[in-house]
């Protein structure tokens, strides 16, 4: 009876101690100790798991190195083929985007009729800014027709043969385009240069021109149709002792990346040279 009482007492005491420990643990009193303990356990478990996985992979991997190398070569070959396909598709996407932009441009300007042409070359001389396109008189291209992209004015046809034509860019040093500054509501002349930069001259001193002003063709002189976008004014040079203001221009067209252009085929340039009075001798 006495033994039974002492065992019950021991059991009760043990339960109380365990219960007390659990209560203290749940109460957060053992956190510093338990976190160190569990952290150590996790580290050891991780160490064993990593080594086990490495050994398992080593044992379960195929032993045939030659077949692995063959497979690797096949996959590399496939990758190179796919990369070639990707490049080809990217080129097609790029060309499709250009064509889509040109179609949008022609739809937005239905008053003109267009003939698309690819740029196939440039003038061999670095002093001149001309491009060669793959449309000629067989496609109805005539000298003087304006050439544009969806971004803006490119130039005009300078010479034509049966299946090709040469286009004088507006950046050519001999190029002059009569333009209209929309915001300032004044006319000016756009000049090319040997470096490919374009600038404005003959801006009236009375006009208030600011950077960012939009430049459109004016149609004066009959060389180009009106309202084709040319570019934007970057900065203006106004000197009181000069007759006119000058301005540097950011072209709307990136002339270094001309791939496809549109020729406006329903415009006939007017040669007004005979009408220009010559000074009497």
């Amino acid at each position, binding site marked *: 009876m006495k033994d039974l009482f002492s065992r019950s007492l021991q059991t009760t005491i043990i339960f109380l101690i365990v219960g007390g420990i659990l209560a203290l643990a749940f109460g957060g009193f053992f956190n510093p100790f338990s976190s160190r303990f569990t952290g150590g356990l996790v580290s050891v478990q991780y160490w064993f798991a990593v080594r086990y996985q490495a050994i398992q992979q080593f044992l379960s991997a195929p032993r045939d190195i030659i077949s692995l190398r063959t497979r690797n070569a096949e996959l590399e070959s496939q990758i190179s083929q796919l990369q070639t396909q990707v490049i080809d598709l990217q080129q097609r996407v790029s060309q499709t985007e250009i064509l889509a932009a040109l179609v949008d441009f022609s739809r937005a300007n239905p008053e003109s009729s267009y003939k698309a042409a690819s740029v196939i070359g440039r003038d061999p001389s*670095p*002093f001149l800014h001309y491009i060669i396109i793959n449309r000629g008189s067989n496609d109805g291209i005539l000298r003087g027709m304006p050439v544009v992209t969806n971004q803006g004015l490119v130039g005009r046809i300078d010479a034509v043969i049966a299946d090709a034509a*040469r286009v004088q860019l507006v950046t050519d040093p001999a190029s002059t385009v009569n333009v209209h500054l929309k915001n300032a509501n004044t006319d000016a002349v756009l000049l090319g240069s*040997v*470096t490919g930069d374009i600038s404005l001259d003959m801006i009236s001193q009375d006009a208030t021109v600011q950077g960012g002003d939009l430049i459109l063709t004016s149609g004066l002189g009959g060389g180009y149709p009106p309202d084709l976008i040319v570019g934007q004014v970057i900065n203006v040079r106004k000197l009181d002792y000069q007759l006119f203001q000058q301005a540097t221009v950011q072209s709307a067209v990136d002339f270094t990346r001309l791939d496809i252009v549109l020729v406006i085929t329903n415009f006939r340039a007017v040669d007004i040279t005979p009408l220009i009075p010559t000074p009497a001798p």
Partner: protein
Amino acid sequence: MRNIVAIPLLALAVILQSTIVSQFSLLAGYADLILVILAAWALQKGVTTAIQWAFLASIMVSVLSHMSWMVPLVGYMGVVLLAALLQNRVWQAPLLAMFTVTFLGTLFMHLLSFLYLSFLGDPLPFATSLGLITLPSLLLNLLLSIPMYGLMRDLAGWVFPVREEA
């Protein structure tokens, strides 16, 4: 008869000049592949047809370029004549002769272009043209002249095979 290779070769050179070489610009200048080919050809031993090559090349360039046919004709003739002049004098240093002809030929060609366009009234500032077009073109031509000289030497060996004496 093998001289007829000039026609496809120069045609290919003009096409390459218009489509590819003119895209690789340094500042506003780019190399003149035809000039370098003519200079390299004219410097080869045994070559007697350099003048004809220059004439043919100037006609081909005139078809593509807005520049008057006189400029490439006089320019390329000048280059091959200069090469012929130097061929016998610096024969022991062919690459030196090639560099000299390319250097002087490029300057001569650009001077002709500059004078012609200035005569027509195009606004061409001399300093800008020299700094942004001529000097970069000169550098590119000199770089191109080394591989071109080797290629034209091989071609000359094919067109004018050396006859071994019995």
